[in-house]
């Protein structure tokens, strides 16, 4: 069984390699091939001196053929020697701290997605075709239809300006003991309550805002998945066995979760994607905003770093989904 799982993971992992290569290639095309003249922008805009432009060209191998440029880029990414032309720091060093903020934001959002989406989806399915179900279904559609940048301002007005239940400036310091490097988890692990409360106060609203659309998607998906699992013949057979309701629902839920897990993994990736807007509005120094900045200044080494990171997170989330999938569903392993 374990051998089967290992083999499955190797097989799955292998298919990710071309994906990652492809992703860097796409970014390369976006960053180097499409723009008219990025070098000028890096060197300081239209007024850049010829000498500075030449120097940058040499430094980033821009005078070389495209495959050399690409190789330089990929090598730079893996050895973290690729410098951000704006502040001359290695790209991943710049990204490091920001990623923790973004990750923590996505974590909060994810938590809201799960605690709103799953139970409401299940309730909707259990009370199918009732008024409750109808209300919840429309609520889910409203969640999906409301853009982050609208809901964010509504919430800021309500929770920040009106009730002052959250804070919008700065970010709380990380707890002194670093275990996972994610502040809120570290605070929880080291039982540092004051820091934990600070983290929650700062992050719950952006997380909630970011997660609400995905929660709507999850609600709909969970409902359908649960109903589908409930309508299978195996459910009738369980009833015929004389299995009580509680245990029956446990069987159904476990079956319904199999597809839900894939969606959850995809949603985690999707939540990261939504961070540029949320971070801008809530003033959080994460990679979403870093990416925006990089784009505005045509700072392509930084952009490549960020997108590469996103792709890795996405791929990892998929891999985790596959592992969970294989753990829940014995059929996948073969």
């Amino acid at each position, binding site marked *: 069984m374990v051998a089967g799982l290992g083999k499955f993971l190797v097989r799955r992992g292998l298919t990710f390699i071309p994906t990652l290569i492809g992703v860097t290639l796409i970014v390369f095309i976006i960053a180097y091939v499409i723009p008219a003249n990025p070098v000028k922008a890096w060197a300081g805009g239209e007024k850049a001196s010829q000498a500075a432009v030449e120097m940058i060209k040499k430094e980033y191998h821009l005078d070389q053929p495209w495959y050399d440029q690409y190789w330089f880029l990929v090598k730079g990414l893996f050895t973290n020697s690729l410098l951000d032309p704006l502040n001359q720091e290695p790209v991943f060093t710049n990204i490091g701290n920001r990623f923790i903020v973004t990750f923590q934001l996505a974590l909060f959002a994810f938590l809201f997605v799960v605690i709103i989406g799953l139970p409401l989806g299940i309730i909707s399915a259990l009370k199918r075709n009732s008024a409750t179900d109808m209300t919840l279904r429309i609520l889910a559609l409203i969640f999906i239809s409301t853009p982050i940048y609208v809901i964010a301002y509504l919430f800021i007005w309500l929770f920040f300006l009106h009730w002052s239940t959250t804070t919008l400036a700065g970010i709380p310091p990380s707890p002194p003991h670093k275990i996972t490097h994610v502040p809120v988890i570290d605070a929880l692990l080291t039982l540092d309550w004051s820091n934990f409360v600070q983290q929650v106060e700062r992050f719950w609203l952006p997380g909630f805002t970011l997660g609400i659309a995905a929660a709507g998607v999850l609600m709909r998906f969970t409902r359908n998945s649960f109903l589908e699992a409930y309508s*299978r*013949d*195996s459910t*009738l*057979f*369980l*009833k*015929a*066995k*004389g*299995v*009580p*309701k509680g*245990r029956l629902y446990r*069987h159904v839920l*476990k*079956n319904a979760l*199999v597809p839900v897990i894939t969606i959850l993994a995809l949603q985690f990736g999707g939540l990261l994607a939504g961070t540029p807007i949320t971070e801008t509005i809530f003033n959080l120094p994460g990679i979403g905003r870093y990416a925006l900045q990089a784009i505005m200044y045509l700072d392509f080494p930084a952009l490549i770093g960020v997108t590469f990171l996103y792709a890795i997170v996405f791929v990892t989330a998929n891999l985790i989904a596959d592992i969970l999938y294989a753990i*829940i*569903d*014995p*059929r996948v392993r*073969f």
Partner: protein
Amino acid sequence: MPEPIIEIKNLRVYFYTYAGVVKAIEDVSFNIYRGETLALVGETGCGKSVTSRALTQLIESPGRIVSGQVLYHRDDGSTVDLLKLNDEEIREIRGNEIAYIFQDPHSSLDPLYTVGYQIGEAMEVHGKVKNIKEGIGRAVNILREVLIPDPENRVRNYPHELSGGMKQRVVIGIGIANNPRLLIADEPTTALDVTVQAQILELINELKRKYNATVLLITHNLGVVAETAQRVVVMYAGKVAEIGSIDQIFHNPLHPYTVALLRAVPNPLKKIEKLESIPGTVPNLITPPKGCRFHPRCPFAEERCRKEVPELKEIEPGHWVACHRY
């Protein structure tokens, strides 16, 4: 005189579907006698599965048991109407005193649990074992009983690791786990190959003898009926057409439907010049034909058949038919 274990009286089940009210079975009455194998035969949609499921209220929404009685005679002499029991009471009977085997072993089992767990669960929910773990231990013996080779290792297998025939053995194992008094086998071999079918039927007969159980066998295959049952109930379009012993049904069929059905089946051991087919199609049960439901396809139909619903009448001892010709 054989004593009945189940008496079904005027059972009526309707389905409130998107398309309207499907009168799936109407006024179905027959007895199941202790220790016999009773076959319920009929074509797709005739209501044989619905009847068998209605016995323990296993009717899913949008279906509904509209009226009728299912009198169940317990060993201690007491009698209960299964349709009057509440959810918990009927649950205690299902899988315990009355167990089911369904048609498709691939979809009956939960793919996410081992076969040992699923057998153990059947015992645990009826308090036959303290916990699932003990149940899994007992499952080994059950797998051995349904002739699965290497049962010690097989209990840890998931359903997808077994062949169709083996899965059906597991389903049978779940059925007999609590030593039921009535085993309802709903098309247990339809999804299987002939050679495997023969083995499974053999196994059911074997177990029936061993546990002295009663079997209700639902099938559309007249061959299976002839080889395994003692008595037959023939259903057509939600009603009972004819009841009798297998010799009565096969050698002296009375209902025109039974007669036609027997002439439509090719017998591989006989020389057949021409199969006879039944004209027309099975009626729509949302708006079933008035009078005798078979009259639009019946060669002997007369005015009366179009108007009056025929009653089930006993023509010779144990041989009942619902037809105006008798």
